[in-house]
């Protein structure tokens, strides 16, 4: 029996198509993936992401404990700030990629991937050195309002001055009278917000946001658009682009590994890998032949297997076939050519700079 978010009935009433994702029965689309994708790029879309988990570190040892479990440098994360990073095993393999929200000097909420709720909580608890760690995943619903009109829509419903909430910053505030953690974070490459609230208020919050957003053309959006949006900006998807067997260095996440911050779980292995050299790297590519790359398709070099595609789609914004793939370092430089095997045919591909899509500067 798949799990359901507090908004399940709302999705059914809205005529959403539901699919099972990471053990959850989630809306994959409402009007259609392309229409929802476009709504987010040009106006705003509203996502139910209540399947995401929340693990909270509290108390005098919270920061020290999480700093030892997180690859990014939490000492540089001020109260009211969010920080992206990885949680690694001793091998350097990625347990999960997460966003840490520092709510107080001694209180950090870690937002984890839905599929990893239990795994992450157990890993964090077992390696926290006795610090207080709580799995609050069932205590939170989460809605994401994403797109260039997101701030204008949200501002109608809250007294919080959104202009004072910068990217990767957050504040506690009422939205439509509902207490929320209002974070300027997201997974689409657009400006936008993630709102954490109590599960029993989620339906009211959802309806208020859609009502306030109606004049702006805000539409509900599902996991299908969420996936094509995140891929256009080359955000990694745990379980597709990386897993316990991949390190942040391989996955192109070296920018969230702070070797100089002191000891953390996985550091030694990552130092060894950095010094010994990588055997594979995750790169962005576009197909120059017809076809759409998909997760699991082989990467070929001179007709022989040399890597694997981890994500791929026809970019709705760019009208190009784009993807992420693990390739040997020799093929990882921008402009490198390889092939992707699609149903027995070799389709030519070229490594390109990521993100594939970037919103115009000045759009906040």
């Amino acid at each position, binding site marked *: 029996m798949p799990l359901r978010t507090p908004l399940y009935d709302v999705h059914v009433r809205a005529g959403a*198509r539901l699919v099972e994702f990471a053990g959850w029965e989630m809306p*994959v*689309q409402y009007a*259609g*993936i*392309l229409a929802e994708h476009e709504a987010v790029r040009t106006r705003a879309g509203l996502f139910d992401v209540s399947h995401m988990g929340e693990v909270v570190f509290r108390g005098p040892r919270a920061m020290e404990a999480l700093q030892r479990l997180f690859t990014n440098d939490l000492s540089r994360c001020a109260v009211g700030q969010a920080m992206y990073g990885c949680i690694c095993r001793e091998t350097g393999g990625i347990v999960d990629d997460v966003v840490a929200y520092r709510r107080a000097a001694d209180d950090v909420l870690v937002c984890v991937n839905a599929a990893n709720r239990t795994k992450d909580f157990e890993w964090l608890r077992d390696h926290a050195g006795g610090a207080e760690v709580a799995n609050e995943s069932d205590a939170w619903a989460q809605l994401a309002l994403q797109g260039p009109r997101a701030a204008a829509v949200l501002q109608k419903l809250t007294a919080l001055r959104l202009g004072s909430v910068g990217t990767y910053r957050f504040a506690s505030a009422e939205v439509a009278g509902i207490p929320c953690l209002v974070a300027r974070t997201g997974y689409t490459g657009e400006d936008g917000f993630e709102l954490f609230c109590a599960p029993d208020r989620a339906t009211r919050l959802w309806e208020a946001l859609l009502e306030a957003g109606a004049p702006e053309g805000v539409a509900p959006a599902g996991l*299908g658009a969420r*996936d*094509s949006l995140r891929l256009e900006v080359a955000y990694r998807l745990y379980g597709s682009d990386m897993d316990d067997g991949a390190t942040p260095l391989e996955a192109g996440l070296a920018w969230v590994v702070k070797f100089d911050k002191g000891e953390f779980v996985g550091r030694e292995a990552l130092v060894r890998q950095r010094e010994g050299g990588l055997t594979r790297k995750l790169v962005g590519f576009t197909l120059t032949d*017809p*076809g*759409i790359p*998909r997760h699991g398709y082989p990467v070929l070099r001179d007709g022989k297997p040399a890597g694997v595609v981890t994500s791929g*789609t*026809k970019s*709705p914004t760019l009208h190009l076939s784009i993807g992420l793939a693990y390739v040997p370092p020799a093929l990882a430089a921008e402009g490198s050519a390889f092939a992707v095997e699609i*149903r027995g045919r070799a389709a030519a591909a070229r490594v390109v700079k990521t993100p594939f899509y970037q919103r115009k500067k000045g759009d906040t």
Partner: protein
Amino acid sequence: MNVPDDLKYTREHEWCRVEGSRALVGITDHAQDQLGDIVYLELPDVGDAVRKGEAFGVVESTKAVSDIFAPVTGKVVEVNDPLSESPETINEDPYEEGWLIRVEISDPAELGDLLDAAGYRKFVEDEAE
């Protein structure tokens, strides 16, 4: 769900319009709806042979890759080439502008294995349960 009465159907959700010795082939309204936005298509060339029940092409939506199966055995005499530039036509008009290929039928007896509209409607309803 739109299921025109004058067509024959496969259990893999293709339709077939018999035109004398030829058959026009496409995917059903139900199939396009289930697939979602269609963004890519692979079709055979004119002159290729297709075999009843075997895949002759591929249709891809944003999320899924799906084979297209031949309702009858025969030779491809025409391909709806403009579709490769505008595959969304299949979503918009699966039974007219969104046709895929025209086939010269090898064995008209095979047509007897296809479902009529009522049979296909029932098949889809049963599949949903």
